């Protein structure tokens, strides 16, 4: 595999800048567009790393979320956000960021990062080696998520099902009763 570090670092810097813009900007629409720019850069990064499955899913979901968020944003009357920052929240996030760096140094500091494409977990080696003969699925990603780990995917489907039912129950128009009507009944 050729060296892809320069491309990845460029994308990473772009994503960091995009995230900072999304957090700091006062306009809601600009924030939505910056978040989407970060998502699209992430999908390009996945393509560079040789993960087209995740790149496709990321791209498609990003398009859908962008449509929904822009529709939701432009119909609002007031798109400017008032940000008043909580000191406690800032301190807490700084502490958690420090903890993240500390634990990362504890784990990877002595041994260094694993080689690209060399998984840390032993179980994934088995999946990579026996994926094709065991399932006859040419796409290793599908063989993992729908055969070796189909039970996890069942949980994912359940989460999606529950959230859709919740969204429809909250946003529905039919069957909604006003409070006074409830009182009169």
């Amino acid at each position, binding site marked *: 595999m050729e060296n892809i570090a320069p491309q990845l670092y460029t994308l990473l810097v772009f994503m960091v800048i995009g995230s900072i813009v999304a957090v700091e900007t006062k306009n809601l629409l600009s924030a939505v567009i910056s978040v989407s720019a970060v998502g699209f850069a992430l999908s390009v990064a996945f393509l560079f790393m040789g993960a*087209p*499955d995740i*790149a*496709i*899913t990321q791209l*498609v*979901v990003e*398009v*859908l979320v962008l*449509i*929904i968020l822009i*529709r*939701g944003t432009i*119909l*609002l*009357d007031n798109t400017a956000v008032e940000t008043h920052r909580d000191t406690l929240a800032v301190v807490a996030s700084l502490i958690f960021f420090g903890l993240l760096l500390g634990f990362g140094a504890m784990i990877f500091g002595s041994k260094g990062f694993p080689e690209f494409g060399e998984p840390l977990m032993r179980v994934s080696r088995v999946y990579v080696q026996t994926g*094709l003969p065991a*399932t*006859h*699925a*040419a*796409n290793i*990603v*599908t*063989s993992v*998520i*729908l*055969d070796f780990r*189909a*039970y996890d*995917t*069942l949980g994912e*489907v*359940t989460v*999606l*099902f529950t959230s*859709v039912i919740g*969204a*429809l129950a909250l*946003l*529905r*128009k039919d069957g909604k009763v006003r409070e006074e009507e409830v009182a009169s009944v």
Partner: protein
Amino acid sequence: MNGMTIIVKTITDFVAAFIVVFGAYIVLYGHLTPGGGFAGGVIIACAFILLMLAHGRDVAFARLPEKAAHIMDSSGALAFLLIGWVGVTGGFFFLNVFGRGDMFRLLSSGMILPLNIAIAFKVGSSLFLVFAALAMFRRRSFRAMIEEELS
């Protein structure tokens, strides 16, 4: 909401069917090429969302009625569970008991293809429903809605 200009409507009529075909390809070949049920389902949902954006709610609901989307949503989730239970006949939940077939053929790798199709139905129809619910919700202005609630 009567949709967008005639240019957008015409292009949408041309493109929407091809988007559905591409989504079906992503779903059906998910075990051979990149993609799968989730990505393909979202692409199919995007085709109907495009219809809804360009033509308005009524045209989109004429192509895919709300009732049908509800049924597809629930039956996709149930089908996923049922395919998992079929594996119990071989000993374990989600055991791949179907024939695995020849490698690199469309009809291969046992239960992965039906699971992909079930996920595609589920994801596609549920995302379409969420977008439809949001479109209905947004028909009135947000502020008018809040004022109505408060009064």
